[in-house]
């Protein structure tokens, strides 16, 4: 490393230590840039792929009101993906590169979206648990050291709160409905609980990038801390619904002031990440197909833009003459 670079690195470290923001044109270590590109692009991909399990129920929503709400939510997810892709591009990668990495399977997205939405209760459980866990992860990111990411997260968090509330309301309606409806709500909780806990990522001991990300102020809380916060917040909500969290080891620990909960099946988590979840292939195929089928639209719009620019140039020349 040259003396100039050492100086820059020292200045960067000092900046981050003082909790100041790094902006796109500021000098930053390559590893910081790489970490952010990986994290922000995966976050964006999660928003985009996350539209698929919910989009599955738009045409079958039980009422026009629920359908309008679900449409608005799915449209928000697309918006969140776009805020994040543009934050990612400020780090010097192109949109095409980032999308190619998703479509080739090189880039990951949140493993939760590789589970299927089997019935309407799942839309409630996804909003309540999956968006609830996402908010828990995302709120601290509003203060992350990279300016464009932090600003995108502020917008995302503002919008995400409606997602969780509408999900809980679906669960509440079903839990207060017929015994069959309540059983559906319970079944959805049974299937989504553990995958939702896995959303916080591996245990701190098995999370190799965590320490560095904490040092860089990209991450503010450890995976296990956030997971515990989520459990503590969600268990009383399940009680309010009159539903049972599917964990025989779950109990309030007076001494710790937290809920104790049972062991997570990390084997399942790593299987899903490696591509062996119930819907990995379906999700990726759907993304690729949508991208390929949209190619002619992208080309046509580009051709149209080129033509009208040429026409405008022509007209102004004629006027000038």
């Amino acid at each position, binding site marked *: 490393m040259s003396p100039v670079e050492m100086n820059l690195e020292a200045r960067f470290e000092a900046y981050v230590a003082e909790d100041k923001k790094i902006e796109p044109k500021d000098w930053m270590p390559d590893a910081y840039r790489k970490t952010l590109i990986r994290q922000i692009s995966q976050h964006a991909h999660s928003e985009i792929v996350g539209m698929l399990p919910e989009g599955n129920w738009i045409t079958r929503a039980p009422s026009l009101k629920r359908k309008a709400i679900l449409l608005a939510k799915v449209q928000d997810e697309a918006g969140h993906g776009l805020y994040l892709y543009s934050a990612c591009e400020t780090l010097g990668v192109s949109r095409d590169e980032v999308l190619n990495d998703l479509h080739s399977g090189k880039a990951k997205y949140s493993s939760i979206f590789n589970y299927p939405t089997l019935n309407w209760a799942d839309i409630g459980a996804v909003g309540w648990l999956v968006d609830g866990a996402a908010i828990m992860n995302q709120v601290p990111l509003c203060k992350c050291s990279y300016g464009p990411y932090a600003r995108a997260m502020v917008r995302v968090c503002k919008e995400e709160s409606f997602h969780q509330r509408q999900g809980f309301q679906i669960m509440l309606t079903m839990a207060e409905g017929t015994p069959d409806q309540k059983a559906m709500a319970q079944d959805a909780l049974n299937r989504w609980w553990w995958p939702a806990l896995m959303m916080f990522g591996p245990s701190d001991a098995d999370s190799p990038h965590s320490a560095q990300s904490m040092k860089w102020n990209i991450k503010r809380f450890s995976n296990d801390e956030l997971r515990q916060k989520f459990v503590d917040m969600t268990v009383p909500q399940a009680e309010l619904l009159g539903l049972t969290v599917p964990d025989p080891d779950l109990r309030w620990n007076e001494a710790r002031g937290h809920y104790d909960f049972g062991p997570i099946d990390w084997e399942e988590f790593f299987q899903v990440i490696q591509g062996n979840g119930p819907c990995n292939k379906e999700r990726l195929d759907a993304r690729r197909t949508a991208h390929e089928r949209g190619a002619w639209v992208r080309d046509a719009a*580009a051709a149209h833009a080129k033509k009208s620019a040429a026409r405008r140039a022509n007209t102004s020349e004629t006027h000038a003459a």
Partner: protein
Amino acid sequence: MSSHEWPLWEIFVRSRQGLGHKHVGSLHAADAEMAISNARDVYTRRQEGVSIWVVPAAAITASSPDDKDALFDPANDKVYRHPTFYQLPDEVNHM
């Protein structure tokens, strides 16, 4: 697959009459018209704006972070540009 990426546009939104346009983010679009309509969908889904500017990102010239000291430090020692620099008698201190 499309080989030419649509250009990048920076988006500015006036949140209400009386305020300036503020940078909110960026997006890709084939031309200015499409940039406006995409910006409406991406950045104003909750009545965040009454007016949108779209600017080709390539058309923006920005100052370099390396010049920060040279550009902005000279203002540092000119405290007399601020009203608090002037100690006045209590009788006129609301001036």
